[in-house]
C-alpha cells in the first residue's frame, strides 16, 4: 500500500512537520496540507511564477518541487515577508504604486523581487525585467510592477 512520507522542514522560520504523498508538489503541500494559501497556483508547469517560494536562498517554482524535497530545507513563502503587522517595503510599494489588479500574481512577484533586492539592492530596469521574466501578470502590463520594485529598492536603501 502506498504510504505517506513524513517531512520536517522550516517554513518562515518555524519548524513544520507534515505528511505527504511523494507525488504531491511543494505547492500542493503548502496550500492543501499545511494551509498556507498565500502561494498561488497558476499554470502548474513552471511558467507563470505565481507559486514562487524561496527555498534555501534561491527562488523556485513550488509546483516543480516535490513536497518530499522540502525535508531539511529552509523555505520562505509570502506569509513570511511581512514583519508581524508591518508590511515589507515591497508590499507597501506594490500597494502604493497600484502594481496589482486581480492580485493572483502578486505573492510570486513579491517573493521573487525580494530575492532580487537581497542580492542586488539597486537593480536597473533591465535587471528587474530580466529577473522577473519567470513571473507572468495578465493585468498590469508590468510597468507598475517594475516601478514598484524600483520604489521599494529606494525605500530600502533610505531605511
Amino acid at each position, binding site marked *: 500500500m*502506498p504510504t505517506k*512520507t513524513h517531512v520536517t522542514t522550516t517554513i518562515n522560520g518555524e519548524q513544520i512537520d507534515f505528511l505527504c*504523498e*511523494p*507525488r504531491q*508538489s511543494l505547492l500542493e503541500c503548502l496550500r492543501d496540507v499545511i494551509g498556507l494559501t498565500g502561494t498561488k497556483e497558476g499554470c*502548474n*508547469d*513552471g*511558467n507563470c*511564477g505565481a507559486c*514562487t517560494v524561496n*527555498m534555501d536562498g*534561491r*527562488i*523556485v*517554482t513550488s*509546483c*516543480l*518541487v*516535490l513536497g*518530499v*524535497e522540502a*525535508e531539511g530545507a529552509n523555505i520562505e513563502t509570502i506569509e513570511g515577508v511581512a514583519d508581524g503587522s508591518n508590511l515589507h517595503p515591497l508590499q507597501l510599494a506594490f500597494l502604493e504604486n497600484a502594481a496589482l489588479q486581480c492580485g493572483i500574481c502578486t505573492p510570486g512577484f513579491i517573493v*521573487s523581487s525580494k*530575492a*532580487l533586492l537581497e542580492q542586488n539592492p539597486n537593480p536597473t530596469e533591465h535587471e528587474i525585467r*530580466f*529577473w*522577473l*521574466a*519567470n*513571473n507572468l501578470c495578465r493585468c498590469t502590463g508590468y510597468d507598475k510592477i517594475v516601478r514598484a520594485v524600483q520604489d521599494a529598492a529606494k525605500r530600502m536603501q533610505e531605511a
Partner: protein
Amino acid sequence: MKWIDYENAKTVDEAVKILSQSGGKARPMAGGTDLIVQLRVKDPRVDADVVVNVKDIPELNELSYSADKGLTIGAAVPCHEIYNDANVIAHYPALIDSASLIGGTQIQGRASLGGNLCNAAPSGDSIPNLVAHNGVATLAGPNGTREVAVEDVCTGPRQTCIGKDEILVSINLPNPGDGFGANYIRFIPRNEMDIAVVGAGVSVNIAGGKFTAAKVSLASVAPTPISVPDAISALVGESVGDGPIQKAANAAKEAAKPISDMRGTAEYRKHLCEVLTRRALNTAVERAQGGK
C-alpha cells in the same frame, strides 16, 4: 499525477542500484523542471514508478576546474551556480550563453545542464553549446563508468544512449586552450522564456590568423541536436574572415532537416540556421581574438 515512490540516493552506487533493481521503471531526477512536468501530464515517453533524486550525490554537485582536466560539471549542478562560478566566467564564458537563458530565474535555480542533456529535447539549449565545447559525458552503471562524447548522447527526441540502469555523473569540458571562442544563440519570438525555433552553438580555435579547429551544432532542426561536419571543414585551415564563415553558415542551412510546426516552417528554420550560425561564428571569433 499517478503514484510514484521517491528515493533519495546519496551515492552514485546507490542510485545505480535503485535503477537496476526497478526493472526500467525508475527515473533519476535532478532539478525536476522537465521530469515533474512530464510525469504530471503523463508523457508516455517518461513513465516512471520511482523517482530517484540525484541532487544529494557529491559527484553530481561538483563544479571544478583545473588546467589539465578542464571543467567538470556535475550532472545536477543548477544553471545559476554555473553562471555565478568564477572558473566558468574566466575560462568558459560562452557556457553562460546557455545557462542564463534556460527558463527564468526560478527555473535556473533548479534546472541542470545534465538534465537538459538527458532530457534530449531537440531544442535543448545547452546541448549545442556543450558540443561546441567538446564536452564528454561520464556515465555510471552496474558495470562501472564509461565516457561518451556529448554529441553522441542524444539518439532521438527524448531518447539517449544512457541505459535505464545508468546515470549521468558529470560532463567534462576539456581546457579549450588559447585562441578559443564560442557562442550559443537561439531565435525565439519573445525576449525570454520560450523554446528555441533554432539554436546555434559554435566554437573556433584561432592561431596565426587561421581557424585551427571549429565546431558547429544546431538545435531544433532535427530529431536531436546535430553537428555540422561540412561547416567545420569550411573553416578549419582557412584564414579568419567572412568567406569561410559564410560557407560554414551555408553548410549549416544545408545540413538542417527541420520540421514545420507552430513555431516556424521548415523553410524559415533553414534560413535561421544560416543567419544564426553566421552571427554566432562572428561572436566566437571576436571572443577568440579578444581573449574571452
